[in-house]
């Protein structure tokens, strides 16, 4: 049977093209594994550093707050803070995963090779996105475990936690793909990180409840999609959320879909990499 298979290479003849169905699964898996290896080859920077930073933040706040009755939104301050720190670590990893990889390839002059792979734009976006989500989940797990020394415990709603971390890292990861495509050099992506990503994340209620803000500031803060991600993660961990969890889930998903379409479009037209 194997002798008459059409793709069997004949010794001395030209190798036949490898065939695949609607989705190039092997290509996708290879691309995904490459992205994962890039991120976690330097695990000291991508896993250990975020854990240490989260521990530092928690210790500093723990040392700073000397009133046992200091609360935030009615819960002990550290209990409120821990979900925020986990969210920040996951989202920061999500931002750095795709964009840094894209910009690195651009500066090395190998990014345009992407258009020669037997991968469709949809598969490329999916490959980057999958690597982002798995990376963020790993970082979130490590940071969660590290922060157990400050109390906390098993999540209130584990499935919701999985959902909100995935949705949040997808949101940021797709934004990161778009920013990476837009960036011509390192300066560009660092600027996006400093002037757009960081304010969006840190003003989203990571360290404080929106109840601490004035009414007008609170209305503005509610337009920040990252708020719904952080709030959803906090709800999933502690059972306390400021927005309705279903609303948070809907907003997160809606933004993810929009960004996915945008990222797909940009890869399809070869924005800033096919000329």
């Amino acid at each position, binding site marked *: 049977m194997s002798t008459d298979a059409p793709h069997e290479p004949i010794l001395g003849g030209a190798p036949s093209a490898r065939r695949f169905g609607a989705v190039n699964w092997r290509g996708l898996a290879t691309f995904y594994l490459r992205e994962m290896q890039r991120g976690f080859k330097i695990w000291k920077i991508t896993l250990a550093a975020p854990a240490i930073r989260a521990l530092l933040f928690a210790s500093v706040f723990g040392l700073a707050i*000397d009133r046992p009755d200091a609360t935030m939104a009615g819960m002990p301050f550290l209990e409120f803070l821990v979900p925020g720190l986990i969210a920040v670590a996951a989202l920061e990893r999500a931002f750095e995963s795709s964009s840094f990889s894209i910009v690195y390839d651009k500066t090395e002059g190998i990014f345009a090779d992407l258009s020669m792979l037997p991968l469709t734009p949809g598969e490329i976006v999916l490959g980057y996105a999958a690597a982002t989500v798995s990376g963020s989940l790993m970082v979130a797990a490590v940071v969660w475990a590290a922060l157990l020394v400050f109390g906390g415990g098993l999540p209130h709603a584990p499935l919701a936690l999985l959902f909100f971390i995935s949705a949040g890292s997808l949101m940021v990861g797709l934004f990161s793909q778009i920013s990476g495509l837009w960036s011509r050099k390192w300066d560009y992506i660092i600027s996006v990180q*400093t002037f757009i990503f960081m304010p969006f994340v840190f003003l989203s209620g990571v360290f404080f409840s929106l109840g601490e803000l004035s009414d007008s500031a609170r209305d503005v803060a509610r337009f920040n999609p990252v708020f719904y991600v952080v709030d959803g993660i906090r709800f999933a961990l502690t059972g306390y959320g400021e927005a309705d969890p279903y609303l948070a889930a809907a907003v997160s998903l809606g933004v993810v879909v929009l960004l996915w379409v945008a990222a797909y479009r940009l890869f399809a037209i070869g924005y800033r990499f096919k000329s």
Partner: protein
Amino acid sequence: MNEKAAADGTARLAAPPRVRRFGLVNWRGVWTLYQREVKRFLKVFTQTICAPIVTTLLFYTIFSIALHDRVRVVSDVPFVVFLAPGLIMMAILQNSFQNCSSSIMVAKVQGNIVDVLMPPMSPLELICGYLGGGVTRGILVGAVTTIVMTVVAGFPFHDIGAIVYFGIAASAMLCLLGMIGGIWAEKFDHMAAITNFVVVPLSFLSGTFYSIGRLPEMWQTIAHLNPFFYAIDGFRYGFIGQGDAPLWLGMLVLAGIDVVLFFIVHRMLVTGYKLKS
């Protein structure tokens, strides 16, 4: 006479170029290296000046909102006023470190460190050039952040002398530390490790967010072993007029550490540790 001058001129053109002479210190060399260092960070000023300023202001906003009525600091000083000098000093420390370490690191990776080692400059002069560049960046970031915060929040200036002394001494300390790191590190990973596991923890646990005097005994002792604590404490004294450690002690500690680090860097350059093989 005209003829003689003309003859002199042609003679000079025909002769081989003479060795440029300089006195005890190669001032032009130091000045050139200093200018190179300053231009290096000014070229990407959005990253090296604007970004740290925006980040510092962002953290100031967040911590003010999150902690303002939850932390008791020194008496009759509002938390936001207590916090500001610490955050400014953290920006100075991190940027000074980054400037010197990345300059040497990048030169090593790209292989153009020889262009710094070959010119007729002594190790002392090299250190001064790098140090000048790093301190300039640290002070620039610190000064602009201070001005913005003063305009936004408005806080007192108690002792400008202490502000300037601690600003410069602390910036120099981190520059020298950055040079040691840059010379020692072989890859960018090593540098990131020093930043993440040494510089960031030391600056976070230095009393930016709380008054050391309110900590348990053991934590107080540990804090007093952290040189960053003296930098932030003294710098804050310059603004609010109160500190956790005696002012003279902070001044002495910083000066002492600067001298020791200076000798270490000097020694590294003289022996060519990891630079000359």
